[in-house]
């Protein structure tokens, strides 16, 4: 069972070699140059271009984003992502209006289902965009979340 998975994993890694060369795949732990590039403050569009170059980000209904419509507190917004896309290798979470739009990137082995939960910070009302990489192609979905000012000033 494990051997099969490893072989599959290695095959996939080889196939993704081209992408690795393009700088999208990061197998080195805490590659500081890559981190500095993609977790830099900037607008959403800039960040998307940086991450995906000119790859198409296909709108899909096969990504489910569970997130509250109104965030109680922008500091902690729970999000759960699942997908019925085939062989999801990566999930990206971006927050449109955050100073650093990229919140996180999850590289998932085939041993994991296409599912992840996290708690994210949101600076203000904005879109939360989820991008999934499936068989080398990219798919996107989004949800709008309202971030409100508290009652007595917090």
């Amino acid at each position, binding site marked *: 069972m494990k051997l099969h998975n*490893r072989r599959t994993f290695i095959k996939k890694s080889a196939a993704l070699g081209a992408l690795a060369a393009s700088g999208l795949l990061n197998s080195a732990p805490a590659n500081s140059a890559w*981190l500095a590039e993609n977790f830099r403050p900037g607008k959403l569009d800039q960040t998307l271009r940086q991450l995906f170059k000119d790859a198409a980000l296909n709108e899909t209904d096969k990504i489910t984003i569970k997130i509250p419509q109104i965030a109680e507190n922008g500091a902690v917004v729970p999000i759960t992502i699942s997908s019925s896309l085939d062989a999801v290798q990566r999930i990206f979470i971006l*927050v449109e209006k955050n100073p*650093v739009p990229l919140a996180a990137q999850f590289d998932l082995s085939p041993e*994991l289902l296409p599912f992840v939960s996290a708690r994210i*910070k949101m600076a203000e009302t904005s879109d939360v965009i989820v991008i999934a990489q499936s068989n080398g192609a990219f798919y996107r979905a989004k949800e709008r979340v309202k971030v409100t000012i508290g009652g007595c000033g917090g």
Partner: protein
Amino acid sequence: MSSIKIRSKRIDGNTQIRTLIAHPMEHGRNRDPMTNALIPAHFIQELIVKHNDKIVATCTMGASISKDPYFAFLLKGGEPGDKITISWVDNLGGQDVEEHLLK
């Protein structure tokens, strides 16, 4: 004292792995209320999840992840006695690791 807590539970033949980590996840733009000095950025940059010593998830993140980060994953299958290892590294070189055995 580990900063990492790990929980697991079986759901429909799969294993949900949840983790809660004690970490300030400071983005570096906050000011100390007493001194008004900028609080330096201090956040986890990479989190690795292993199943029986094999990496199953590599998570790279910035300070847009909430303080005391929480993550959940769904492992296909999973047997009692399987080992889950979660480790993190932050931007200041801090790190921690924790193990959890599936029941």
